[in-house]
């Protein structure tokens, strides 16, 4: 594609100038997928990002044009453009931006034809609806509705659609009426240009739970090593003492050392043994 700024209308030139300016002002230039996000949600997300990131929606051709004029490795970002890409600018690093965007995600009602992101379950119990055609609509969508005590009630908890399956129109309407919002909506970071490198979404996704658990594991390793190697630290001195006493008690009881500190445990062990043998002899 030939890039002749001179032949572009003024508004396009202005947009390209803006993209170039923001690209130099911010440390990170990213592409986010806006697919399926209603305008209202976009407003909310913009508000949530205020002061942290700037979101610019423009045509892909203009983005490519601007990157081309900047030159260098940022042009590689163009290969990640999709039909619904928008630009995001921030001074945060790509990992922080990714998790920031994850946190701005909200739940939304499903539209017909969308894929269930997880098993969608309708719970047993009364609804707020009065008896009427709604019962038939719910039933046709596969939801076990009935009228009980003058109220529309779900008779049993049911998985109405499995993760990965399509949500048909009847079900989408029924779920919307029941105020069930199964869809995650939010900006998805497709790729980011930061400090000279491109970060793709797969390296940016961090499992927060797994990471938190790895901290616990690391701390456990240190605790275990300190105690097992008997290298006392402020954090483990008490545990070491406890371990030493446990060992001493264990040895004392095993050897039936009659010391006043452990005589109750020794008696208890003798009694337990007698009871065990009693069970055998009947």
């Amino acid at each position: 594609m030939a890039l002749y700024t001179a032949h572009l209308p003024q508004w396009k030139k202005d947009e390209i100038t803006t993209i170039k300016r923001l690209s130099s002002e911010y440390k990170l230039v990213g592409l986010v997928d806006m697919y399926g996000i209603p305008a209202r949600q976009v407003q909310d997300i913009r508000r949530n990002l205020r002061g942290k990131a700037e979101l610019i929606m423009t045509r892909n051709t203009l983005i490519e044009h601007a990157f081309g004029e900047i030159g260098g490795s940022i042009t590689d970002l163009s290969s990640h453009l999709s039909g619904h890409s928008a630009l995001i600018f921030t001074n945060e690093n790509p990992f922080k931006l990714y998790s920031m965007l994850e946190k701005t995600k909200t739940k939304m009602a499903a539209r017909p034809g969308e894929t269930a992101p997880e098993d969608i379950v309708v719970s047993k119990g009364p609804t707020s609806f009065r008896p009427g055609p709604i019962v038939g609509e719910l039933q046709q969508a596969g939801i076990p509705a009935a009228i009980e005590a003058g109220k529309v009630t779900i008779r049993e908890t049911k998985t109405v659609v499995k993760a990965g399956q399509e949500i048909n129109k009847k079900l989408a309407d029924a779920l919307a009426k029941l105020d069930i919002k199964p869809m995650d909506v939010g900006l998805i970071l497709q790729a980011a240009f930061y400090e000279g490198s491109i970060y793709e979404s797969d390296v940016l996704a961090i499992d927060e739970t797994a990471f938190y658990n790895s901290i616990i594991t690391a701390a456990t390793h240190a605790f275990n090593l300190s105690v097992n190697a008997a290298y006392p630290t402020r954090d483990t001195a008490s545990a070491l003492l406890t371990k030493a006493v446990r060992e001493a008690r264990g040895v004392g009881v095993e050897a039936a050392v009659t010391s006043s500190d452990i005589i109750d445990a020794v008696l208890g062990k003798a009694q337990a043994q007698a009871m065990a043998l009693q069970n055998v002899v009947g």
Partner: protein
Amino acid sequence: MEYVYAALLLHKAGKEINESSVQAVLSAAGIAVNESRVKALVASLDGVDIEDAISKAAAAPVAVAAAPV
């Protein structure tokens, strides 16, 4: 239970558990011995692996209720 204690005592001391040894131990403790119970004990211990039986003794949390760490 005293008959079992006597048997365990003999077992731990590496002595044979028979009617007269059990009787001797019980008597020494001042217990009036019931001969048929002694016989029953000795008979029921026949073929029993005592070490194995007592190793199954449950852990006795004798001092209880430490605050969870």
